[in-house]
């Protein structure tokens, strides 16, 4: 079955605000997690990843936080822009292969 899931199916934020997208995973053996962004008509695009030996990883305007105790993952987007509007997926690898298992997705809408 599905390994990861998302708390909120939709999120609407004002341009310039920070966004937080949450994800819960069920398999404590998962050791690699990725956030993807999917724009309309395109395939999922890699944003940032994190391994289970880390709690936090930062990229350009994005931060991923991993809480292994409660099996929770979050993506924070700073100063959200209209171009950030998309569906965001978290994914993990519960079987030690590289077949990533995806959550249901959160649609982020940025209001100007």
């Amino acid at each position, binding site marked *: 079955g599905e390994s990861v899931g998302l708390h909120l199916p939709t999120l609407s934020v004002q341009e310039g605000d920070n966004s937080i997208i949450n994800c819960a995973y069920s398999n404590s053996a998962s*050791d*690699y997690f*990725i956030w*993807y962004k*999917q724009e309309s*008509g*395109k*395939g*999922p*695009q*890699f944003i940032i*990843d994190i*391994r289970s030996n880390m709690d936090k990883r930062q990229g350009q305007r994005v931060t991923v936080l991993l809480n292994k105790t409660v099996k929770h993952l979050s993506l924070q987007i700073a100063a959200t822009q209209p171009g950030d509007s998309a*569906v965001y*997926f978290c994914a993990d*690898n519960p079987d*030690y*292969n*590289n*077949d*990533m*298992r*995806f959550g*249901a*997705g959160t649609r982020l809408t940025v209001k100007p």
Partner: protein
Amino acid sequence: DTAVSQTPKYLVTQMGNDKSIKCEQNLGHDTMYWYKQDSKKFLKIMFSYNNKELIINETVPNRFSPKSPDKAHLNLHINSLELGDSAVYFCASSPWQTTHNSPLHFGNGTRLTVT
């Protein structure tokens, strides 16, 4: 210089027909995948191939047959199409398969509509 390219982008066909979707990656990756995305945006893995060898075959009807002529190509052939096959199919690739975790690189999808 698209990294993962799949054709066609749109495919409309009738029930019972047989169709193929092609995928090619120019990233030099060893592993390729097919994912199916339903109308609710849920992405589910169907197959993965590593160096032309089938690694993962999820519970997909045997009407779906992947074929990998070389490690840069993974095509998906579907026999006797059914209404429920309507979805967006994504091809993806990655540089490693086991133990070496790395992100997947996706194509832009093929929207299959079965009427």
